[in-house]
C-alpha cells in the first residue's frame, strides 16, 4: 500500500524531520487561502497522486501568490495525471499540497529499503539527490553511500552519524541529517515499509528539509498496522484489483482480450507469456492461489467477466493443493450463476484430474477441454482473433 507525499511527510514530521510549511487542499478557493496564509512570495502546488514524475505530467506548479492560484489549483485537481508509472489511463488527483517555496542549496537523497540479497535493511544516501536513484545507481554508483543494519540491534547512532558526516562536514547540517536518517529508518521498521525515501532532502541555508517523501507499506504486514488502512486511497488503485485482493486472489488488469485464470503466480505469468508467444494478448493476470475455494474460483470468473475487453476465457490449472474437482465446481457454479456469455477453453492437469474432467463433462457446459497446454494456448489465440 502506497502513501501520498503529504501522508509520508506527516509520518516523518512526527519524528522530528523538518518539512516545508503547507497543507493539503481539495478545491481552488481552499488552495488560495492556504497559499496566502503561508506568507511566502511564491508557493508550489503539488498534485497528490501515487506516482513519481508528477512534474513532467503537469502536476506540479510554482506560482507567485495571487488570485490565479484558485484557477490553477482547480485545474490540477480536476486532472487525471498520466505518467510513465500510471499507465495511459492515468490517476485522478486526490488533493493538492500547497507549500512554501524554499531556496535550495543542495539536494540530497536518502532511502531505506530491505535488500533482497543480503536480507538486511539498508540505508542509502547520496549528496546528489533530486534524480531517480536508479539513474544515479547506474551512472554514478560511487556517489551512493550504503549502510547495512543488523536487524537485532537496529541502526546504531554511529551509523547514522557516519552517513551524516559523509554527506556534510558542517556540524549543524550533519546533525540534522543524522536526525533525518534515524527518523527514516525508524519509520521504515516501525511501519513495515517496502520503501522509505526522501528525494530530495534539501539543504536550505542552515536547515535540512524534506522536500518530497515517499513511503510504501508492505501489504502482507498491514494486519499489524490496522490504523494505516485509514490512509488507503482507493482512487489510486484499480477497483477490480482491490476487490480481487479481498478474496485472496491476485488480479492485474492488462490490455488484451484473452481472460486468464491460473493457479499459481509463476504459472500465471508463464501462461501470459505463452499466449503472447502465440500472438495473442492477455486481458489480465489472475492467480487464484493454491488454497482457493470453490467460491474464490467462482469469484475469479466473475471478476474476469467484468472486464468488457475479454472475448475468450482461458483456464489453466495444475492441481496441487487446489484440486481439479474443486476448480471444476467453482467454474461450473460461476457459469451457471452468470450465464456463459463467452467461450471458455480449459486445460487442467494434476491432482484429481479425472474427477475434474468428469465434472466438466457432466455439466453439459460448452467448455472446450484441451489437455495439451501448447495446443490450448494456440486455440485460445485463434478463437480470440476470430471474434
Amino acid at each position: 500500500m502506497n502513501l501520498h507525499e503529504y501522508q509520508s511527510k506527516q509520518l516523518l514530521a512526527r519524528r522530528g524531520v523538518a518539512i516545508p510549511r503547507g497543507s493539503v487542499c481539495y478545491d481552488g478557493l481552499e488552495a488560495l487561502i492556504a497559499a496566502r496564509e503561508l506568507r511566502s512570495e511564491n508557493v508550489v502546488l503539488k498534485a497528490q497522486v501515487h506516482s513519481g514524475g508528477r512534474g513532467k505530467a503537469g502536476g506540479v506548479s510554482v506560482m507567485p501568490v495571487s488570485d490565479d492560484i484558485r484557477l490553477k489549483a482547480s485545474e490540477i485537481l480536476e486532472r487525471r495525471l498520466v505518467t510513465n508509472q500510471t499507465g495511459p489511463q492515468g490517476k485522478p488527483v486526490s488533493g493538492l499540497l500547497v507549500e512554501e517555496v524554499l531556496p535550495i542549496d543542495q539536494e540530497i537523497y536518502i532511502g531505506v529499503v530491505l535488500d533482497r540479497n543480503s536480507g538486511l535493511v539498508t540505508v542509502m544516501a547520496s549528496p546528489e539527490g533530486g534524480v531517480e536513484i536508479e539513474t544515479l545507481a547506474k551512472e554514478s554508483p560511487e556517489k551512493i553511500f550504503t549502510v547495512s543494519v543488523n536487524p537485532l540491534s537496529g541502526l546504531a547512532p554511529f551509523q547514522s552519524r557516519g552517513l551524516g558526516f559523509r554527506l556534510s562536514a558542517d556540524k549543524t547540517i550533519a546533525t540534522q541529517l543524522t536526525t533525518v536518517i534515524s527518523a527514516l529508518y525508524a519509520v521504515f521498521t516501525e511501519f513495515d515499509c517496502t520503501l522509505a525515501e526522501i528525494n530530495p532532502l534539501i539543504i536550505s541555508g542552515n536547515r535540512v528539509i524534506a522536500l518530497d517523501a515517499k513511503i510504501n507499506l508492505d501489504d502482507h504486514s498491514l494486519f499489524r498496522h490496522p490504523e494505516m488502512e485509514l490512509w488507503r486511497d482507493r482512487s489510486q488503485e484499480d477497483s477490480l484489483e482491490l476487490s480481487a485482493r479481498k478474496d485472496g486472489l491476485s488480479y492485474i488488469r492488462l490490455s488484451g482480450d484473452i481472460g486468464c485464470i491460473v493457479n499459481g503466480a509463476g504459472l500465471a505469468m508463464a501462461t501470459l507469456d505463452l499466449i503472447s508467444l502465440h500472438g495473442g494478448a492477455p486481458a489480465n493476470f489472475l492467480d487464484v492461489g493454491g488454497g482457493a475455494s470453490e467460491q474464490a474460483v467462482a469469484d475469479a470468473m466473475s471478476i474476469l467477466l467484468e472486464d468488457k475487453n475479454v472475448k475468450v476465457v482461458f483456464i489453466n490449472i495444475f492441481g496441487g493443493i487446489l484440486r481439479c474437482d474443486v476448480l471444476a465446481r467453482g467454474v461450473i457454479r460461476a457459469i451457471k450463476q452468470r450465464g456463459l456469455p463467452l467461450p471458455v477453453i480449459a486445460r487442467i492437469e494434476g491432482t484429481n484430474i479425472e474427477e475434474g474432467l468428469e465434472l466438466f463433462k457432466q455439466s453439459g457446459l460448452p467448455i472446450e477441454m484441451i489437455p495439451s497446454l501448447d495446443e490450448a494456448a494456440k486455440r485460445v489465440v485463434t478463437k480470440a482473433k476470430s471474434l
Partner: protein
Amino acid sequence: MSILVDKDSRVICQGITGRNGTFHSLACREYGTKMVGGVTPGKEGQTVDGIPVFNTVAKAVQETGADVSLIFIPAAGAKDPILEAVDAGIRLIVCITEGIPPLDTASALYTLREAGCKMVGPNTPGVISPPDRCKVGIMPGYIHKPGSVGVISRSGTLTYEVVDQLTKNGVGQSTCLGLGGDPVVGLSFIDVLEMFRDDPETEAVVLIGEIGGGAEEQAAEFIKSEFNKPVAAYIAGRLAPPGKRMGHAGAIISGGSGTAQGKIQALQDAGVTVIENLTQVGATVKQMLT
C-alpha cells in the same frame, strides 16, 4: 544421497494439528518421508494418525532425533517458530507459509545464518528428493520420477508443470526445490547450485525464474565461473508490467531492474539454454542430456 534431504532425514511438522499441517504431514509420510513428530504448544500427548505431537521443538528433537522441520504456521506468528527450530538444533527448515512480513523473515534469517542453519522459503512448495522418496513440502509426489536432474525454482505450480514435463519425457529428478516467492528468502539459486555442483547424483540443472530482484542474474555469474554441468532455464514474466506485483511478493519489476529480459540475457551470456516456450522445457532438457 541427494542435497538437503534424503532417506535418512527425520522430519517434524510445526503446526501439525492445523488443517494444512495435518494434510501435508500425512501426504509426506505417504510419499516415503520419515515424519517423526509434530509440534503444537499445548497438545503434547496427542497424535496425528500415529505421529506424536510435542509442546516444543526442543522436546520433539530430543524424543525423535529430528533434524528437519516443516513449518505450516500462519504468517502473523511465523517468525517465532523459525527461531525456536534454530535454537533446538534443527539443521534445515522448510517454511511453507506465505505472507510473512519481510522484516520478520529478515530478522529470523539473521539468527538462522549465524547458527549455521538452512532455510528453504518462506512461501515455498518445499523440497523433494525422488530417488530417496523424501518429500518435505506440498508438491504432488506422483508427478516426480527419480533421476539426475536438479530443479531449482522460485515458483509453485510452475515447478509442477515443468517437473511433469520432465517426467513425461523420461527425464528424472535428483532433487527439486522451491526457493520461495518472497523478496527475501533463505537459500538462493547460488546456494543450491553449489550443492548441485558437489552432488555426484546431479548431472544437470533446470532453473525456473521469474521477474523481480537479481537472483537469476547472480546465478548466471556463478554459472559462468563456477558451474560446469549443463543448465537449462525458463523465466516467467516477459509480459509483466513494471511496478506491479505479479502474485508473489517478490515478483515485481522496480526501477527498471528485475525484468525477464534482463535475466534471460544474463543467463544466455553464461551459456545457459533459456527456453522460450514453457511447453518445450521437457523436450529441450531431454535433448540437452543426450
